[in-house]
């Protein structure tokens, strides 16, 4: 038996823009008559890689790089256009926590429903039931419909079901972006345990800490092709060095028209808004990270809500950030637009800015240069 868990050969996936959406009979008839040319684009092109058994591998890349498409093909949700994949072992995916949960059902019923969605038998679910409940920490509410759960409880329960599955290969897509810090730590611990026990894990994440601490190797995707397969410690250097990111970006057909940053003592973020009127309580989030992928800071919508007032949907807004002195280097800004419940638009590391104030030979430790006053109290 080979020691390869996943072998991907010449994998490609093509999407036809426009024609792949649902249509009416009339559209089909008119297409047959007029032979419209479809616009095509390759979400993945000639992907090749092997993953050994027991290996934990990260997948990184910008929006639209093909990460999610790759996971969807591996988990059989969608089929490749060409190529071949060999998977040795039972595979399950954690693509979006809580999919398949029904709000009217109790926690207990949802565990059974979700477990069977992931291909578990009733006996299997029963044997893991106590552990799942225990890990999720929702014992007291296990017979309450999940519509009464807080979003944190919801996520905890869903993660627990998937994490306790008896599978050899686990695919994870950004699931750890949710939940509170304590639970995230618990999940990371669980994931670590999973890899320690010899399971093969594939993780898509933007968080360099997750990639660095949980995986040994990482695959960097860019516009559908593999840019690099590298030790996880070094991959972010390639990621951030891969192409010039300017301090300005324009988005087409998006709720944000453009984003621009300036840094001179303080950070200024200029955003040109184009939010559709049907978005309820839009709010904006930003995150600053350095060229190793460490997060320097972000606004947390729970505490510092950047709410866009009614009637300002089509305006330009400027956010001035009083920042501590940053060390010399290149920094990246990620932006989100969300309504009360979900993300509407996300663009990771879309613009960058340079900090040169401390000089190239800056030998400071850490992320910031502390500013301090010195006072002597003479006795």
């Amino acid at each position, binding site marked *: 038996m080979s020691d390869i868990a996943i072998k991907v050969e010449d994998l490609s996936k093509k999407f036809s823009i426009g024609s792949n959406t*649902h249509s*009416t009979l009339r559209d089909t008839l008119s297409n047959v008559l007029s032979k419209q040319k479809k616009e095509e684009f390759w979400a993945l092109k000639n992907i090749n890689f092997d993953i050994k058994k027991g290996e934990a591998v990260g997948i990184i890349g910008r929006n639209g790089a093909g990460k999610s498409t790759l996971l*969807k093909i591996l988990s059989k*949700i969608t*089929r490749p256009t060409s190529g*071949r994949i060999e998977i040795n072992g039972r595979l399950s995916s954690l*693509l979006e926590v809580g999919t398949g949960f029904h709000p009217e059902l109790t926690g207990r*019923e949802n565990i*059974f429903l979700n477990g069977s969605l992931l291909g578990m038998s009733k006996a299997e679910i029963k044997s893991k039931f106590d552990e799942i409940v225990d890990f999720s920490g929702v014992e007291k509410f296990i017979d309450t419909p999940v519509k009464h759960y807080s979003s944190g409880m919801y996520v905890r329960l869903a993660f627990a079901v998937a994490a306790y599955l008896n599978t050899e290969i686990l695919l994870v897509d950004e699931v750890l972006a949710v939940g509170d810090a304590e639970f995230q730590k618990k999940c990371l611990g669980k994931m670590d345990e999973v890899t320690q026990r010899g399971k093969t894990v594939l993780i898509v994440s933007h968080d360099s800490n997750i990639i660095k601490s949980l995986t040994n190797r990482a695959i960097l995707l860019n516009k559908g092709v593999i840019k690099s397969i590298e030790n996880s410690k070094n991959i972010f250097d390639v990621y951030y060095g891969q192409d010039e990111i300017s301090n300005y970006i324009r988005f087409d057909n998006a709720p944000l028209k453009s984003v621009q940053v300036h840094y001179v003592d303080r950070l200024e973020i200029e955003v040109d808004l184009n939010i559709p009127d049907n978005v309820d309580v839009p709010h904006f989030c930003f995150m600053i990270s350095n060229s190793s992928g460490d997060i320097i800071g972000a606004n947390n919508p729970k505490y510092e809500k950047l709410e866009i007032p009614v009637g300002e949907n089509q305006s330009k807004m400027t956010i001035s950030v009083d920042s501590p002195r940053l060390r010399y280097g290149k920094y990246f800004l990620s932006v989100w637009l969300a309504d009360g419940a979900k993300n509407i638009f996300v663009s990771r590391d879309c613009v960058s800015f340079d900090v040169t104030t401390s000089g190239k030979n800056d030998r400071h430790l850490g992320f910031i240069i502390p500013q301090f006053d010195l006072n002597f109290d003479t006795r």
Partner: protein
Amino acid sequence: MEKTIIDAGSRSILPNFGEVYRYRQLLFSLAWRDIRVKYAQTYIGLIWTFINPIFNLIVLSFVFGVVAKVDTGEVPHLLFTIAGLSAWTYFSTLLSDAGSSIVGAQSMIKKIYFPRIVIPLSKAISGLVDFGVTLICLFALMIYYGYAPGPYIIWLPLFLLLALFSGLAGGILASALSVRYRDFGFVIPMIVRLGLYATPVAYQASAVPESYKTLFYLNPMVGVVEGFRWSLFGTNPPDPMMFYSIAIIFVVFIIAVMYFHKVEATMADIL
């Protein structure tokens, strides 16, 4: 250890039945979810389930029983109609629920892999609860009218199974078609409304002129409803044309499963 090969080049025309069997627990979980959710919406949900069939019963009993006074043999018209209607309602509910099930489950389909056919299949199980309740009402009425089911009652499960396969055949086909053509969302209710009269729910199949018979038996539910009543009351045994109906059911069922399998590959991309 399980081994999976995903090859863009090769593709079977038949679904992987072994995999569907492995996911059998999901079949019951989904059915249980549907039943729970329907009845969790308090007593209103329960009432709505029966309002439609009761409404049909009133209309049919009035038109066929009171106004047209159709011949129903020695069976009282009400009993006659309820028996036919219970099979018809199970079939039509299954047809429309299964037909809309894939479009209704799109968020799940886009995020988790499982054999998609389990979704329409599960509707056959959840529909059995309503059917069971109707059957209990029917038996209560039979006691009231002093009818004891004869030895033919052992054939009842067979006709139920035929109703199940007819409903699934149409439902699976419609669910796969509606992935690309949402128009089918409008077609199914039309078929159901027409079918109620094109099926001998409130009249006897023998009342249909001989010249229309071939056309009439194209509707697979004709044989099912007739057979259903025969097994309950021991009335006229089903016409031999019934085998023709059964053949249609299985041909459509096989086509539906194969077409569904074909669409399954691109379901997540199109929805």
